[in-house]
């Protein structure tokens, strides 16, 4: 029997306590235990970024992250960005600039961009196109060719 751990954490602003096996991945915990299906399983090995969530504001591939490690931490998933009936500016930019086609990569893309946007704001940086592309390199998209996603991110800094 796998050892069970009790963890306390915040998910999308709600405090929760759960007892889980030590081996459980954060991705499975979010999707199957918390039933938040917005976070997507894309490759299971940290290559595609579809499962990106924020842990204490930092983007992580939840498929490579053990759920027990969120103990005492603050987790945000794509569902957590939609607040007070409003899309987050990141979500809005992706919709408006056409950065979404099939949308399977979108939740991970949204979370990566959110973390990047926050980091740039806190350091008072307006990134150039190459820096934006670099920030998105860990998130694969097969539909859009990335061009409109890059444009959407650029737009976040113009507003």
């Amino acid at each position, binding site marked *: 029997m796998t050892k069970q751990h009790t963890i306390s954490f915040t998910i999308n602003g709600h405090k929760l306590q759960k007892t889980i096996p030590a081996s459980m991945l954060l991705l499975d915990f979010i999707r199957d235990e918390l039933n938040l299906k917005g976070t997507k399983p894309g490759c299971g090995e940290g290559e595609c970024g579809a499962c990106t969530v924020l842990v204490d504001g930092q983007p992580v591939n939840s498929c490579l992250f053990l759920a027990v490690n969120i103990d005492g931490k603050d987790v945000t998933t794509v569902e957590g960005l939609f607040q007070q009936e409003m899309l987050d500016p990141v979500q809005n930019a992706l919709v408006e600039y056409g950065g*979404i086609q099939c949308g399977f990569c979108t939740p991970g893309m949204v979370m990566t961009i959110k973390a990047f946007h926050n980091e740039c704001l806190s350091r008072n940086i307006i990134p150039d196109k190459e820096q934006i592309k670099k920030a998105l390199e860990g998130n694969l998209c097969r539909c859009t060719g990335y061009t409109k996603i890059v444009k959407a991110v650029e737009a976040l800094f113009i507003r």
Partner: protein
Amino acid sequence: MLEQLKVIGHPTPKLDGKIRACGKAVYGHDIVLPNMLYGAILRSKYPAAEIVSIDTSKAKQLPGVVCVITASDVDVNNISYKRDHPILKKGEVNCIRDEIAAVAAVSNEIAHKALNLIKVDYKVKPGIFDPFEALKDQAPQINKFFAGKSKKNITHEFHYEHGNLQEQKDRSACIVSRRYIMPRVTHCCLGTCAITADYSRIDTRLTLYSVTQVPFLYQRDMAHALKMEPSHIRIIQPVIGGGFGSKLDMYPYEPICALLSMKTGQPVQIVFDREEEFLASPTRQPMVMDVTTGADKNGRFTFREVKIIKDNGAYTSWGATTPFVMMQTFSSLYQVPACLFDSYAVYTNNVYAGSFRGYGNPQATFALERNIDALADEMGMDRAEIRLLNANYQGETTGQGLVYRSCGHKQALETVIEKSGYSKKYSVIQQGRYRRGIGLSSMLHVGGGAKIYRSDGCGTTVKFDAYGYLTIITGSTEIGQGSETVLAMIAAEELGIDINKIRVINSDTDVKPWDVGVHASRTSFVAGNSLLGAINELKKKISPQAAQMLNTDVEDLDYLNGQISSRKSGASVKIDKVIREIHFNAPNELCLANYYYEPGSEFQDKNYMGNVSGAYAFAAQAVEVEVDTYTGNVKVLDVYVAQDVGKVLNPLGLSGQIEGGVVMGMGYALTEELIIENGLILNPNFHNYKLPTAGDIPNIHFFPIETIDSAGPYGAKGVGEAPLIPTPAAIANAVNNAIGVEMNSLPITPEKVLKALKNKIND
């Protein structure tokens, strides 16, 4: 009239974008049904072997396992259009994908644990992994369910010809022959294959939550496989995480999932992980193409002679039929008086190929457009000039019988030549470590569906509710390409209502009318025309009522801003008020209409002659690259795209298709290859199968060309596949311009570039 369009031609964000951005879209992976089990499939350990015995007893004993099936537990038909593919394999396995047994269990983990408890004894056989070996007389028959007419290991062959080949050869001033070798690449949909099957023993009905692109053909194929009544099968399509042609056929995991549900009486879900996706979802067709072409002394093309050997893999899927499209490129892209085309799809013990965006055309276009450069070079002609000289034209009927009612081929070429500064850049002599080059390519593709199946049509129902909101029930399918949005835009344009008052229902075979499926770049054209027809029928109900209310006649009405108004008097009435009058007053009618649209295309005859599509799309691309002669790395800098789209419907969706296609073509050209050795896949992961990332993307400059085809909705043609088709050839031509060596096999890896440079120095 076109200038007055209020919605069409204006950038419109995807209507379904917000739910996708918020993680609320429900994909196949997200479905959970009460009492649902998890399915898993045991695949072959070897690409070629006899199955001596299968022992499932230990797996069955594992707590949590509900059901284990093998071929001997089921009564089913073979699948694939050649019926050469058993759903579960018995007696022998012929490729590494082969399904031997399947498990349903209370958790995914237990299902996979159970697979490890199934004991299979194999007697390993030497496999045949090279199609040229499979064609030899002494080769064994690989697929025992199907033997080709001319040779035992040919599953499908095509022969096409037009014109007098010998005569054209005799009058050629220059003839060039080349061999082109195309790799095995795969779709890499971000959403892997997923299905949930829910069989009800009470009413013997099967509901499938399936990511298919062709729900009605799939329903029929599933019924044949399971020996069921087609109408007892309901297909519900969840949001699809990418298609690109991969979901055009039904694969064994789908009827297997249905069988597990039928055996257990519980819903069962099968979701591939990424490794299984690489292993068991289809690929583009790898092939070897021998192409010989000629031109007369003025540079006019004279003939093309093409022989293609395709590695079909162990079973047949739609990959074997891609010559339908390939032969069009050889027979009809640029004017050519004679063409001889032969292709052979050959069984091997490799994984089988399916359909993939472009349907053989990226391969055909690569060979042809590389060959045109070789021909121009040989003749000392300008590579741009030879293309312009031979370009297709409006009003042309090609040797194959394709009728170009509208044609932007030459204009597309001229546009990219001018915008890219081709001629100037082409002649700059390159020296030093980094060398730049520029390449040209063009393409022809169906732009108004393709009459392959008995009907190439699409049905639509439109219905107004009493509040002026419209529901479009369309047979067509959304796979992310933006068809829902285009359809809503068309309805908003025609009925003058806000696009947010329109809903598109397109995901349930019990509800939606028939459609052949999302393929062949057909949805905006065929479903768009179908919707226009339905709206026309709907207006026949609404307009007389509105005319009566406004004391005028139906010809005098405008539908605008949620109102119907009289041009003469300026009086208007809200559209929902008119609808309520029709609904609630005698003779009490519904504001509902149906329409079935069939494109005006023809079936081709047995010689593949005929005007197979309702319209034809053309495009040209100019690509600028930089080659690092130290590392062999090729960087794509700028891509200039001019595409004859007929008419721009949604500029935002359109440029999204262009950019996505170009980058997909770039991956095919430079980095992607599913490496297979002795039937085994060596790189079934994103670490070693290199997709382009954001860091790799070039600047893409897009110039739509509007030729306003009279058959298309507002003049529009199909768009989706075209943008990736010319890209690999244009990249290879640019590399050739940069370093002076021909790259005739894909992908153009750094190793190949360095080797080519080394050989060039040694020459």
